[in-house]
Structures are given as C-alpha cells and as structure tokens.
C-alpha cells in the first residue's frame, strides 16, 4: 500500500511547525464538531454553516433509517431518485449526488445508478450526525459539492449491554443488540441489528407492491487500543446485507409483464487508523479505508419462469490517507493531508466482464487562524489528480467575526466538485424495446465506430472529441450568516447562500441509428443555480420545554432555461386547445423537486427527573413540481408535473401540493435501564399515492430499549 510513500511529505510538514500548548478551552461548553475542519472545533466558533443532530433527537425520531432522521432537518429535503430507486437527500436545493455521505469521516460508496440509497444506513450506535452546508471539496474532494453529512459512531466509554426492539403498525420490525466493553488495554463495541419491512401497497388491486418488502442486517464493530504517549490504534468494521423481494408489473406498450425475483445488496468496510497526539498540540493520523459494495438482481417472468432481467454490480474503494495538524501558539492551526483513492467497478451494466478502475491522488492543506481575539479565518485548498478526468483544485475561505459571545457574523466562499461516476463513463445500455441506447463517454466512440462499420448509424450529431471529454461538475458558492443569542428571546440564526453550478452532466443525443433510434451519451451541458435563506430559531421555554422553528426559502433554476426565456424561445402548449404560447420569466417556477418554502416546528419536552421525554414535530413542505421518475427495476414511477409540453416546471403545470407531517413521541425511562417509547408518525395520515408513493401513512410505533450497565464488573477487572 502506498501509505509509506507519503511519510517524507509528513515529516517535512511536522518539521515546519512550532509547538505550543493546547488552545485553551475557556470558551463556553459547546458541541465539538470534527467534520467542518477535520479538526476538533467548537460549533459556536465555526465559520462554516454547520449543524448537528444529537443522539437524543435521533432517539426521539424513533427511526433506524438515516433518511427518516435527515428528512426532519432544516434545509434538507427527502427526494426520490431520478431512477426511482429509493430516496436521497437534497441539501440547499442540490441534487442528492452533490452531498457527500460519510461514516466516521469516510465516504459511503455504492452509487450504482448514480445515487446512494440512504435508507440502508442504520442509525444503531450513531452518536450524532454532523451536517456541513456549503462546498467542502477543499477537504474531502469529489461529491462534497453541496455539503457533507457525517455520521459519527459512539466510542465505548463504559461496560454495557443494550438491547432494543421496535415494531410499527406498518409492519416494520427492528431489533438490535450492542455490547460495549472497556478494559485497560483495549475497548471495543459490537453491534448487530436486523430490520424487516413487509412492504407497502398503495394499490392492492394491482400486482406487486409500491414499496417492495425487504430484510436487512447490519453488523458493526470498533476496537480501540490505547498505546503509549497519547497514541492509539483503532479498527472499525461494518457489514451490511439486504434482500429485497420484487414483485411488480412491467408495462411495455400495451402489454404488461408480471415479474418476480430478488435483489441482494452486500456491503463491507474496514477502517484501521493509527493516531498520535503530541503534548505540544500536534497530531498525526494514518488511516486506510477499504470498502466494497455489491448488488445482484435477478427477475423472472411469472408466466414461464424465464429470466426477465439480471444484473450485478461490484464497486471496490480503497483509500490510504495521512493527516496531521500542528499549532503555532494559540493563533494558528495548520492541517494537511495526502492520500489516494483506488476505485474499481465491475458490472454487467457495462456490457462486458471488464473491471473499470480509476485512481485519484490528492493533497490538502488548511490554515485556521485566530487573527484577533474576535476574528477567525479558515482557508483551505485541495488538489485532486484523477487518472480519468484530470485535475481539480478546490479552494475555500471562511471567516467568523464574533462581536461578543452572543453575536457573530459568518461568511464563506468556496468551490466544490463532483467527478463523473462510473456509469457516466462506462455505461453500455441498450433498450431495444423502447428503442434507445446509452453509452458512457469513455466507450461511446468505440461503440459508435462499431455500429457504423455495421452500417447501423444514420447520423452523428457530435464530433468524437466533443463526446469523449467529460469533466467533473462544479460549483462556486458563497454563504453569509448571522447568529444571535438573546438572553430572554432565544437564539436566532439566519443564513443566506448561493451555489452557481456549471458543467452539470446530462444525457445528450449523440447519434441516430438507421432504425430511427437515438443513441445517448453524457455531456457537461447544464448550468443552474440554487439560492436561499435559512432561518433557525431555538428557545428554552422553561427547563422542560424547548422550542425549535425553522424556515427555508429556496430558489433553484436552470440558467439555460432562463436564457431561453430571455430570448423568447420557451413555449408551453395548452393541454386542451393544444396551442403553443410563450412562457415569461415570472412564470418559470424552477427545477423539479424543489419546494420554494419549507420548514418545521418542533417542541421537545424532558422532565426534570429526566424520566419522561416527549416531542411534537410538524414538518412542512411547500408545493413543488416533479420530474418524471422512471420505475427502474423494482422502483416506483412518478409522473412528471409538466402539463404544457416544455419539460420545464412553470406556473401552468400541475404541482405536487404542499403538505405537513405531524409526528409525536412519548417516552418513559425507568431506573433499571428500561426505556419505553411510543411514536405516532404522520398523525394526519397525509398521502399522495401518485406523486409521493413512498410517503407512508399514519403509523404507530413502539420502541423498547434495555440498557444494562456492567460497571461493577469493571472494578473487579
């Protein structure tokens, strides 16, 4: 492994540092955030817009699925994937693939068709979730274009056993067990859970279910060995396995074919890390993250049990990395790191058994500077060199000015990027029934040449050079915000942001076959922006009640559509008279799946004895337009909102209506470690079968948790 090659760089870095004592922690007690700077920083002093979801809140939400926890957070929205496979998270109006999802600082992989299925990530053993909004590619590279969501697992601090079980009236069952062990020479944590969902059927008269039933299991482990001189070795590992039973109807022209089958997902990850801290405030991390994601799908036709569809997909990801921070007195912290990512994919979707691979080599540096006692500036830069798409340089500059402990002003500017995924580079997909093909940019010319030799190409629309080059998608973004804490009125935070995205990858027609079928490939064609304002308000009503309000205003538009409108080139078609008319700029609503208004009201209660807790959460989402979402293999199909034929969401289209979801929870903790929680999800039973098939109706949930502390035994040891 090439971890060793990086040592000279590190030694050079360390030798440049002057040491000083730790930054004094005289600041108010506050949450420590690690994601925003890759160092431990107090939330209140961070110049980037950062939020965290603590374990208490995760517990009250009462869900073991990451999607359901994130769906309640300000500025985040649950959206269906374009391919109909599951749901993703939209952060500040950006597509789900522009937010990097990490566990303990390492990326979760498995973007088989471009997007990650977040529903598979279990919340068991997750201490908190940190959300950094705004481009963070200056630290994490690709995918951190819009932000980063980092799930942080808890470290074993005492001997304990924990069991939990959950049942939902929507026939979802969950059970978990956790064993934490602490000894002088080592600590470990072992967790296992299993989840079963018998599916959801919106239209029982039709064959198959809207949400297919599945069962999954997660196994996670963490071993920590403290070494001499403030150093430590840790090993984190996880395994996940899921089986999804499919039964659905594939509609092809006037025929419908009933199919059945199963899809399997297997995921493994292992993550050893060596950490050393020096008294003078310098630390060193050597880590190596390895993960594999694998899926296999097999569908059969009901009528003759013949194979209807089959695919397999395996992605491997290996990332050795070195990181170090050092301090110049109290004012400055330098953090630098370097590493490489070795990735490969092997799938039937690319038309052959070949393994496609790409390597990325990167280095980053960050300077965290307390310029005056009130001003903090964090500047960072990361360089990525990729074997397929070349190099990327991502800077970021953030600053915070603290007028006093209660009032601070923040601003940041940065660049983020997302590299083209394997599908966009290597896909080889032919749909003869529907009459089109899609080829990735690395294989499209070769495929076109082969077809041309066979005399099957009628016309080519783009030059070879143009269709072969695919660049990463990128964004420049700025943010500004004010945090104000009034002793009596509560805490206010207002943040404004804008992301200017360019080179967004879309499918593009590159050729026409003699059979009048289009051939598509990918191209950096789209430009867009998202901008908005986020308002958060927190107040302790009294020692027991806590109120939280938030509102998010969002505008997200396609710049090319705006240009078209400006040049009077965008038309609509009246659905009844079928006549065309011109669309004006004030009639353009924006990108699909973006609600202009969203927000939430949350009230939390905790009794003074801490034995009772409760929450009332009302999550609101304003109207939005939906893009057509295809039902891929086992996926759901959502119709487009477009009613006037221009494939743009404008005021003449049919919007998905706004809705509000009210969730309740009530829990009692007994002295013996038993906790019983009851939840009602979606009390008003809001449903929309057509546009939001994944929105489940009212559900009653019972959670039982039993925690057994083994403290006495520790003393015996």
């Amino acid at each position, binding site marked *: 492994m090439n971890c060793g090659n990086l040592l000279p760089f590190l030694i050079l870095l360390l030798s440049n540092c002057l040491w000083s004592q730790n930054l004094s922690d005289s600041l108010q007690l506050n949450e420590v955030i690690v994601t925003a700077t890759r160092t431990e920083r107090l939330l209140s002093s961070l110049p980037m817009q950062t939020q965290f979801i603590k374990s208490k809140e995760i517990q009250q939400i009462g869900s073991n699925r990451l999607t359901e926890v994130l769906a309640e957070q300000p500025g985040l929205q649950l959206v269906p994937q374009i391919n109909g496979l599951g749901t993703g998270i939209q952060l500040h109006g950006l597509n789900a693939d522009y937010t990097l999802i990490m566990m303990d600082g390492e990326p979760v992989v498995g973007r088989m068709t471009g997007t990650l299925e977040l529903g598979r990530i279990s919340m068991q053993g997750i201490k908190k979730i940190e959300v950094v909004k705004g481009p963070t590619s200056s630290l994490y590279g690709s995918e951190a274009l819009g932000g980063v969501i980092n799930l942080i697992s808890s470290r074993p601090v005492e001997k304990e056993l924990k069991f939990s079980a959950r049942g939902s009236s929507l026939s979802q069952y969950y059970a978990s067990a956790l064993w934490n062990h602490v000894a002088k020479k080592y600590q470990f944590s072992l967790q296992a859970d299993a989840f079963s969902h018998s599916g959801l059927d919106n239209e029982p008269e039709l064959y198959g279910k809207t949400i297919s039933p599945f069962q999954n299991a997660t196994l996670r482990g963490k071993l920590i060995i403290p070494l001499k001189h403030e150093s430590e070795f840790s090993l984190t590992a996880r395994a996940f396995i899921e089986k999804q039973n499919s039964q659905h109807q594939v509609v*092809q*022209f*006037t025929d419908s074919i009933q199919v059945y089958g199963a899809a399997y997902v297997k995921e493994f990850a292992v993550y050893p890390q060596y950490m050393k801290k020096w008294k003078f405030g310098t630390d060193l991390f050597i880590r190596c993250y390895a993960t594999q994601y694998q899926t296999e799908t097999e569908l059969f036709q009901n009528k003759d049990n013949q194979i209807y569809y089959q695919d397999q997909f395996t992605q491997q990801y290996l990332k050795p990395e070195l990181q170090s921070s050092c301090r110049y007195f109290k004012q400055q912290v330098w953090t630098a790191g370097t590493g490489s990512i070795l990735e490969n994919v092997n799938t039937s979707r690319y038309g052959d058994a070949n393994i496609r691979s790409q390597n990325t080599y990167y280095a980053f540096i960050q300077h965290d500077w307390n310029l005056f006692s009130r001003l903090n500036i964090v500047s960072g830069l990361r360089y990525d060199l990729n074997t397929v798409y070349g190099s990327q340089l991502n800077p970021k500059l953030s600053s915070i000015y603290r007028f006093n402990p209660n009032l601070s002003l923040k601003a940041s500017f940065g660049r983020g990027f997302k590299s083209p995924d394997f599908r966009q580079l290597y896909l080889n997909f032919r749909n003869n*029934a529907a009459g089109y093909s899609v080829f990735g940019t690395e294989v499209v010319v070769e495929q076109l040449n082969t077809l041309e030799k066979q005399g099957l190409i009628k*016309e080519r629309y783009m030059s070879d050079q143009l269709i072969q080059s695919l660049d990463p998608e990128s964004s420049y973004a700025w943010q500004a915000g004010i945090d104000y804490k009034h002793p009596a009125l509560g805490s206010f935070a207002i943040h404004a942001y804008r992301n200017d995205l360019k080179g967004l990858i879309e499918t593009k027609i590159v050729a026409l076959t003699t059979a009048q079928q289009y051939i598509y490939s990918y191209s950096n064609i789209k430009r867009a922006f998202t901008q908005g304002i986020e308002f958060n308000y927190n107040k302790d009503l009294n020692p027991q009640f806590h109120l939280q309000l938030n509102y998010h205003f969002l505008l997200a538009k396609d710049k090319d559509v705006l240009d078209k409108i400006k040049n009077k080139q965008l038309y609509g078609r009246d659905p009844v008279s*079928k*006549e065309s008319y011109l669309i004006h700029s004030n009639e353009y609503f924006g990108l699909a799946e973006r609600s202009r208004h969203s927000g939430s009201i949350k009230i939390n209660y905790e009794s003074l004895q801490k034995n009772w807790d409760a929450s009332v959460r009302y999550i609101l989402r304003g109207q939005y337009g939906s893009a057509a979402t295809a039902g891929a293999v086992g996926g759901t199909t959502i119709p*487009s909102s477009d009613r006037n034929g221009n494939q743009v969401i404008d005021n003449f289209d049919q919007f998905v209506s706004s809705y509000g979801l009210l969730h309740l929870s009530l829990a009692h903790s007994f002295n013996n470690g038993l906790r019983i929680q009851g939840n009602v999800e979606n009390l008003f039973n809001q449903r929309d079968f057509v546009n939001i098939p994944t929105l489940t109706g009212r559900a009653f949930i019972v959670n039982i948790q039993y925690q057994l502390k083994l403290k006495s035994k520790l003393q015996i040891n």
Partner: protein
Amino acid sequence: MKPLVLAIAIIIFWGACNDDNNTAPNPAATTSSVSISNLPADPPTGYDPTNGKPIGEKNQFTYFRFADSTILTQADSASSKWDIAFKGATIILNSGSSGPGTASGFVMNGVFSDLAEVPADSTFRKDQAPTYAISNWTSYEPVSKVLSPTPGKIFVIKTNDNKYVKMEVLCYYKDCPAQVNAFVHAARYYTFRYTLQKDGSKKFK
C-alpha cells in the same frame, strides 16, 4: 367568387397602397385555416407480446396536399400532387430526395397565431436525406416514452404551387389526450393546423 376578386385586388394594389390602411388588401381574406385530426402516419396494428415492440407498420408515408386538405393514395407517391407526407415522427416535403415536386420549408420558433408573415430572412430548404427540411420539432421523454411536438415550433412551407403555409403540429397521439400515456394511447396520429395563403403572398394576416 369573392376570394378571387380580392386576390385580383391584391395584385393590383400591391405595393401602391402599402401605407394606406383604408385601402390595404386584407391578406386574411385569401387565407384558409384548416385543422386536421388524427391523420394516421403508419401506425402499428399491434404489439409483439414477447418484446412489446410495435408490429404491423407498413413502412409507408401518408401523403397530404394543403390546397384542398386531401390525403392522397400511395399511387400518387411519385407525383407532384402532394406537398407533405408523414411516417412516424418523420415528415418529408415533396422535393429533393423525397419527391419530384418543389415543396420546401423550414421550422421556426414562435407562436402560431402571432406569425403574421414569413420572416424576411427565411431560407426554404428542400429535403436531402438524411436531412429533412422539417426536422427537430419533437421532444422525446425517455422516462414516460412520450414523443410530443415541441411547443412553439412552426413549420413554414412553400407548396408545390408556390403558396405559403404556416403549420403547427398539435399532437402525435390519437384523439389528443390531455395527458398522454405512451403505453395506452396510440401514437403516430397527427393532429395539426395550418394556414394557407392562396394569393402567393407571404402574409398570413
């Protein structure tokens, strides 16, 4: 009789009276606006149950003449009797590689009812397979598999007898459903409207 008189009047006064609103010829009087519904453009007769592919297409164009809104027979395919023909999403004009006629045309952006005359800088093209004068007027949605005429596309055509036509395809599915379902509604049926200026001028109103 009346249109004829007016046509003569236009010829006489053309150029001389352009600035005089009171006596200016009324181009609308010599135009005819026609709507055609469900013109079949080689629709399939069924679908293959094994792979869902459409079957039974005859691979034949449907030939149409603007002057009298007539569909011609296959026997007339090699004649100059037709101006425009339809097969699936392919539209040909009777000229160049498509036929012995002189019909030519182009596709422009605009609102059909607002187009008062053929723009001065227009270039009328004849068919030269695989490039057709009437092309790039459809939008295909790969998810719903719906092919629809792109809104705001106007065809401007000069017929075999040198008359100007503006035309807009309204829909591609039988009976123009308000919301097309490609798996339910029959494709390859054209509903369109056109305005023919019979006096040979480029004005539509």
